[in-house]
C-alpha cells in the first residue's frame, strides 16, 4: 500500500515509518500539513495517517480538504487529543479511524490492516494472479508449492504489478509507486530492482512474467492458464 504519514515529531515519525515499511508498505513521511497537501495533489495514496496537531495546516483541516476534494482513501488520525468531543470532531472531519497517543505498535498495525481491508482494492490477505499468490502480511510470493520471501521494495514492486496486470507501466509510474517521495532513485536503480525481483521469481518459476517494454517501462503478463 502507498501510505502518506504526516507527523511533526521526528521521534514518532521515524519508528512508525520503519514498521510500516517493514510490513511492506511504501511510506511517504512528511512533517507538516502544507507539504502533505501538496503531495496529495500529485500522488494517490491508499491510506493516510495524519497527526492532528501539525505546523502550518492542522491534520483536521487536511482531512476535511482531502474529503472535500472527493478523495476516498481511508484516513487514520493519530493524536494526543483524547476527549470524546475531540474524537467526534476528528471522525466528522473525515477520518475513518482515530488512535490516541501513546501509540501501541501492535494496535497501530492492526488498525492499518483493518483500514486496508476497507480499501476497494483489497482482495483478502493475499493477492492472486492466475496461480501466483502474494501474501500481503508476510511478504511471501507463492506458486505451485514453491515460496519465496521478498524484501520490502521487491514486494511493493510485485504488488504494484499484480494490481495492474497486463498493463504497460511506465518507469515514472513505477517510480512514484515504489520509491518514496523526495528520494530520487539512481538512474539504474529500477533496472536493478526489476532484476532482483526476476531472480526471486525464478524460485517460483515466474521470472519471465515480467516483460521489458523497450523505452517505455515494464509489464506483468502472466501466461493464460487454459
Amino acid at each position, binding site marked *: 500500500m502507498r501510505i502518506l504519514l504526516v507527523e511533526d515529531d521526528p521521534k*514518532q515519525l521515524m519508528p512508525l515509518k520503519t514498521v510500516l515499511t517493514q510490513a511492506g508498505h511504501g511510506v511517504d513521511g512528511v512533517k507538516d500539513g502544507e507539504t502533505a497537501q501538496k503531495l496529495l495533489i500529485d500522488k494517490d495514496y491508499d491510506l493516510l495517517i495524519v497527526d492532528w496537531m501539525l505546523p502550518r495546516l492542522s491534520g483536521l483541516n487536511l482531512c476535511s480538504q482531502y474529503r472535500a476534494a472527493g478523495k476516498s482513501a481511508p484516513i487514520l488520525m493519530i493524536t*494526543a487529543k483524547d476527549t470524546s468531543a475531540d474524537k467526534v470532531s476528528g471522525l466528522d472531519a473525515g477520518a475513518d479511524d482515530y488512535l490516541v497517543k501513546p501509540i501501541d505498535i501492535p494496535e497501530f498495525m492492526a488498525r492499518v490492516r483493518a483500514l486496508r481491508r476497507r480499501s476497494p482494492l483489497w482482495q483478502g490477505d493475499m493477492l492472486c494472479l492466475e496461480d501466483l499468490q502474494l501474501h500481503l502480511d508476510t511478504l511471501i510470493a507463492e506458486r505451485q508449492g514453491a515460496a519465496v520471501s521478498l524484501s520490502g521494495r521487491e514486494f511493493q514492486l510485485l504488488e504494484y504489478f499484480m494490481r495492474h496486470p497486463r498493463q504497460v507501466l511506465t518507469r515514472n509510474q513505477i517510480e512514484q509507486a515504489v520509491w518514496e517521495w523526495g528520494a530520487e532513485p539512481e538512474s539504474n536503480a529500477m533496472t536493478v530492482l526489476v532484476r532482483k525481483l526476476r531472480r526471486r521469481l525464478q524460485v517460483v518459476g515466474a521470472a519471465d512474467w515480467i516483460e521489458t517494454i523497450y523505452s517505455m517501462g515494464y509489464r506483468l503478463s502472466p501466461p493464460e492458464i487454459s
Partner: protein
Amino acid sequence: MFNHSRRNLARWFTLSMGSILVVFAGIVYYVEVQDKLKGLDRLLYDKASVMAASVQYDLRQSPSNVDLNHVPLLGSGSHPLDKELAYARWYTAQGQVTRFFGAPPPERLAVGPGFLTVQLADPLTAEEIWLRQATLPIKGRSEILGYLQIAAPLTEVQDGFFQFRLVLTFAVPVALGFIGLTGWLLGGAAMQPIRQAYQQLQRFTADASHELRSPLSAILTNAQVGLLSTPEDEPSHESLRNIVDSAKSMSALVNNLLLLARHQGRLAPESLKLVNLNVLLKDLAAQFTKLAAEQNLTLTYELSKLPIEVQADPDLLLQALENLLANACKYTPAHGVIHLRLVGHINWAIIQVVDTGIGIPEADLPHIFDRFYRVDTQRTLESGGFGLGLAIAQQMVKAHGGQIRVASTVSKGSTFQVELPLKPHYSELL
C-alpha cells in the same frame, strides 16, 4: 454547567433576601397594627374616664344605688359625648346590665375588664362590623360601683390597614423581582472568575495531556519498534521490553490522572444520557466473566427484574464499575466468588460488588478512596496498580450525584456498594 450554578445562586439569593424582606414587611405591619390599636385604646380609655367622672353615687347608700343620670350617652339628659362610640353599657358590680346606649347588650357581663376586639352585626344593615371594646371597672371610694363598657368601630383603622396591606402586596413582589434580577446579575458576576478558572484548568489539562502523551508515545513507539527488530536472545531485548512496560504503565497513570482532573465536581447535565443499568451491568459482567475465569474465579450476577435507569455518562460510570470489578478480581484468591448485584430502591439504584477476597484491614478502610493509597504496597506494586482505581471510582460516582460505601472483613471479603440517584439530580438541577 455555569448557567445552572448561576441559576442556583440567583435562586438562593432571591430566596434568602426574599424571606428577609417578607419577614421584615410582616414585622412592620404588626408594629403598625399594634400602634394603631394602642392609639384607639387610649382614646377609648379617655372617653371612659370622662364618662366615669360623671357617675354620681351616695356614699352612705349601697353601691347599687348609683346615679347615672348625668353620664353622657347613658344618662336621661342624653348629652352625646360624641358620635364615634358604637355603644355604651353600664353593668352593676354584680355584672347585671342596667343602662345602655346603642346595640342591645347581653344581660350579664360576659367578659372581664380590659380591651377586646369584637364582631357585631349592625342592627340596621345586618353588616358585620368590627369593634374595639373597653370594659373598665369604675371604683368608688372603696368598692367597685360597676362596669362601664364602651366600644368604637374599627372601620377607619381597618381601612388604614387595608391600604397598608395593599401597598405591601404590590411592593413586596416588585421588590422580590428586583432581588431576583440582582441575584441573577450578581450570580453572573460571581461566575465570571469561576468560569475563567475552569476554562484555564480545561486548557491546562488539554495542554498537559498533549505534552505528556507526545514524549510517552515516542518512547513507546521507539521501544516497540526496537523490540520488533531485536531477536529475543539478545540482552537488549529485555531492556526494551522493560521500557515498553514502563511506558505503558506511565501512559495508564497519565490517563487516570487526566480522568481525575477532568471530572471534578458534578457532571454537566447536558453530558448525561439515560442509561439502562441492567444492560450496562450485563455487558460488564460478560466482559469480566472471562477475566475472572482466567484467574479461576467465578463471577455471578443478579440483576433487578425491572429496568433501572439513571442519568449518567456511560463511559465514566463504566470506568468506576470496571475499577471495582478489577479490584475484586485482583484481590480474590483462586476459586473465590465475585458477585455483582443490581437492586432498585425508592430513589436509588444500588450496585454491589461482593467478593470473597482477602479483605481490607479496618485501619485502612477510611483511606482506601484516597489517591495513591495502597493497602499493601508490596502486593499492589506487583500487580501494577497506582492506588488510583478506587479514587477514580469514588470521584466518578460522586460526579453522578451518588455515593460509594465499603464493608470489609479481613480474609472474608469485601462489599463495595455504589448508590446512584434514580433520575439523578435532574429535578434538582432544573
